[in-house]
């Protein structure tokens, strides 16, 4: 079984890209899994439209990527039980500190041309750890602006395959399908998270609402005098 993990901020066109993948890969036995926080109906839409096996999980108060790590083995087993030859997992990555990509399968990061020119820098591991980056909604901006977006992505992520598409028509997704076809079958016993997850064990996580570092313990940092640097970076 091959695996594709699709991540990107809300409403950039993840599901539309997945539809185009499903259409081009109709000879495969496809299973689709969606991880979202509170509400998702993509599984129902895709099941009705393409008659494929779909499922979903709500992360609730947990971060969706945390959820993805915890349940991924179960998801893979579910797909294998359904004799899938291709498993597509869509994640509603939210805080942009981490990414759901695994050491196996194809990680697809999605960014919309309409997100503005600085979005690629802000999206961190969701793009830097992706195998393929896709810019969507290219029909909504001028060619020059689309190229500026691609240039930014290229300068930041030189070694990643960057594709531009207007997902409605699915322009230039042929290359993505080739990458998926050429990807190796996954081995459930060797699958690991690609990046380092952020640490989330602190008094804020367990519900303490007081503001200010003196009121907390666990991972707490004082804002540096010049307001630069990360609050916490795995140190």
């Amino acid at each position: 079984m091959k695996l594709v993990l699709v991540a990107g901020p809300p409403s950039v066109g993840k599901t539309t890209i997945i539809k185009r993948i499903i259409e081009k890969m109709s000879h495969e036995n496809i299973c689709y899994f969606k991880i979202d926080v509170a509400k998702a109906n993509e599984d129902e839409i895709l099941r009705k439209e393409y008659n494929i096996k779909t499922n979903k999980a709500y992360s609730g108060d947990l971060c969706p990527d945390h959820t993805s790590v915890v349940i991924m083995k179960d998801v893979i087993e579910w797909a294998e039980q359904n004799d899938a030859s291709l498993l597509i997992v869509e994640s509603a990555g939210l805080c942009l500190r981490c990414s759901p990509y695994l050491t196996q399968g194809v990680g697809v990061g999605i960014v919309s041309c309409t997100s503005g020119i600085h979005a690629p820098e802000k999206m961190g591991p969701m793009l830097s750890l992706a195998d393929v980056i896709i810019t969507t909604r290219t029909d909504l901006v001028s060619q020059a602006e689309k190229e500026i977006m691609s240039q930014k992505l290229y300068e930041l992520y030189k070694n990643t395959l960057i594709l531009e598409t207007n997902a409605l028509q699915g322009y230039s997704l042929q290359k993505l399908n080739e990458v998926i076809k050429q990807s190796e079958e996954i081995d459930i016993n060797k699958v690991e998270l690609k990046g380092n997850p952020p640490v989330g064990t602190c008094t804020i996580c367990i519900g303490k609402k007081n503001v200010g570092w003196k009121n907390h313990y666990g991972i707490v940092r004082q804002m540096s005098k010049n307001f630069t640097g990360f609050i916490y970076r795995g140190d």
Partner: protein
Amino acid sequence: MFREIIINPGRDKNNQQEPYEKICIPCSSTVSIVGPTGSGKTSFINDIELIAKGDTDTERKIEFILNSGEVFVSSNLTKDKPVVLITQNTKCISDLIVSEFISIHARSRGNINKDIVEQCLNLANQFTGEKIERDYHITSLSGGQTRSLLIADAILISDSPILILDEIENAGINKALIMDLIKKGKKMVFFVTHDPVVALNTDVRIIMKNGAIQKLLTKTETEKILHEKLKKIDNYYSELREKIRNGLSISSDLPYEKILSGEECQV
């Protein structure tokens, strides 16, 4: 760089094969694409921009033939892109100032000319009535200003052998000047247009209908003569528009006789 473009048939909106075997257009030609709205003009130019390989909705295959006779293979890198497309879209989303916009785009296209920002601005300002300054925000430019800037950008920065312009007549900019400049640039140009002056300006016309290329027409001798006359009427019309835009009253009647005899007419 290219000798000709070959278009292999795809499918129309009813999934029927397009009614031609293969269309070859030499790259020394200018081409207009005409047809009612919804007839597939935009899909066709998208196919050319992407050098479609049967992977778009239309399933057309486009081939660019190099001077050597070989088929051009695209590298996926922006700087190697042979096509520039100016869409009807004049919305800019990036919150950049004009000079940043031009210089980042020049970098993406591998253009290292130091004076590119200045040159691009000067050219854009010839097309539009309202002057663009280098520190204006892209997002605050008017439709005509953005279009002028993008066309100047296409001519100077992208400097690709193939240029596609989607309805240049729409933005109220100086289309006669643009067409003159482009003709001097020795590029292959596609005009998507509803304007007879633009359509008759080109060597070849592609007629679209129901998502398919219906036929290909070559400019006739009669059309050449007609075009020369139309240009004069169009100049009169542009002049009239400029005067009205600038708040002047028009004191002379329409110069029928001059128009009919093909003389230069002034407002």
